[in-house]
């Protein structure tokens, strides 16, 4: 009996470890649905696209629309604003204006400060975020920190001359 037990030591240890590993894997697998349940549900995912009619935005005007619950600024830029934006290349996160717009008179950016997620206010040329003092120019590029990046350009495309769909490039 004693010999048998001694001889089975390896086998016993192996089984113990195997049980621990399988049990641990089971616990980890059980965590997956719980963690996943906290991710956006399907109805939240469903509001991923927004269609916007641009006809009544006059030059110099701004419209704020909701896309995925986030504000999106749509700016009908004046020739002066286009010129000023094209002249500079941004400060903190350099990017040419031409890469940020599809048609120069329409600027479409997510109105969420890239610092802490506040909504910047339209003030003078560009925007100012009152939470922590970040500033953006008329191309939505950050000109003063603490924001690290330019305002995000969402994926969008023109379905007609005066209509865009935000959410899909």
């Amino acid at each position, binding site marked *: 009996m004693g010999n048998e037990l001694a001889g089975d030591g390896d086998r016993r240890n192996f089984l113990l470890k195997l049980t621990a590993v399988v049990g641990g894997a089971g616990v980890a697998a059980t965590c997956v649905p719980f963690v996943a349940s*906290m991710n956006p549900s399907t109805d939240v995912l469903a509001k991923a696209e927004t269609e916007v009619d641009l006809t009544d935005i006059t030059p110099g005007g701004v419209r704020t629309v909701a896309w995925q619950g986030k504000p999106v600024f749509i700016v009908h830029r004046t020739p002066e604003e286009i010129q000023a934006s094209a002249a500079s290349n941004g400060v903190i996160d350099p990017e040419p204006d031409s890469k940020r717009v599809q048609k120069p008179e329409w600027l479409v950016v997510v109105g969420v400060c890239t610092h802490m997620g506040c909504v910047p206010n339209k003030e003078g040329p560009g925007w100012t975020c009152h939470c922590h003092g970040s500033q953006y120019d008329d191309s939505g590029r950050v000109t003063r920190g603490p924001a690290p990046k330019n305002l995000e350009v969402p994926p969008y495309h023109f379905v007609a001359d005066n209509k865009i769909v935000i959410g899909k490039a």
Partner: protein
Amino acid sequence: MPNRIIQWIDQRFPLTSFVKHELTDYPTPRNLSYWWNFGFLAGVVLVLQVVTGIFLAMHYRADISLSFDSIQHIMREVNYGWLLRYMHAIGASAFFFVIFVHMARTLYYGSYRAPRELLWWTGQGLLLLLMATAFMGYLLPWGQMSYWGATVITNLFQATPFFGDQIVIWLRGDYTVGDATLTRFFALHYLFPFIIIGAVVIHLVALHTVKSSNPSGIDLAAKDNIPFHPYFTIKDLYGLGWFLIVYSVFVFFMPDSLIEPANNIPANPMQTPNHIVPEWYFLPFYAILRSVPNLVGGVVAMGLSVMMFAFMPFLDRSRIPGGAHYRPIYRVQFFLFLIDMLVLGYVGYTPPTSQTLFIGQIATLCYFGSFFLIPLVSRIEERWLVKRGLPPAVIELMESEALAIEEHRLKHRRRGDQP
């Protein structure tokens, strides 16, 4: 008859011996000042918050279309709803006030030093739990400050390497703070207090193992202790009386004084208020976040600023007992630190301008500097104090402490224990 019932219980459960050991006869240093009341007060506020919270939850609706109105319903229609809500809202501030004093006392008297490190660290854990609970509770009224506070703080997790964006969305359950966020914050805000109660039990077990420190810093263990009851039950109750007076003044006469006016506007995801400020108890840490002109740096600095307290047992190298009591330089440092906290609080409250930003950066440097200088300062101070000549009582104490450590070591060696 009651005696027989207790006898019956005692044979099956250590009721009498537990009460005797941990409550009535629990040995307590006889020289504890009123600064030692605040641990007990924190316990009382915890009970107040749990009780008022549970009754508020009976009327509150965690749904973005209903929650703001349900608060109005509580304030106007629920019997004594206004009282429950004001007690809970003021109670949150009272909780932080009491905890801050409790921590300041520990820092002043050096109560974090050996053998009370674990007591101090469990307290640090409790502070983090308290902050998380308060933060999640603040979203529930679904006002403008609630909404944008939650937005800013959940956004901090963007600083996580690689998965930043996914983690933020996972925390919110949506692309922005929304219904999913509100419901989970409510669920967790209800859960966390019970985790806090569990952590408090651990905190108390640690306390009852090492016993209370005291203003002299001299270990009175066997000599000068008196039973907790009636001496400290009565002292704690007297302090409670004063606490309740101040608390009631706030609850009944100035209940709105600590509530940001902007939070009386329902949350609007399309418009950030011009001036968002956190609750007063987060202001110094918020100022540190804003002072670093870089997202990740700011988040790290803020997290570190809360955690710095945990390093105190390692940073403080002085062997002079009694905390700031016998240590003039440490005492000056302590008060400078408090002033720095107030400056940071002020900076956190004001809108960001280049001037306040500059003050905030200086104050942030002072904040971390006062921690990092402690190892150096405490050693220089000790040398200076020893050279100047310590009071005989203190010398005697330091020698006996060194002896005790040596004896402890010898005992272990004799037993042949591995270190």
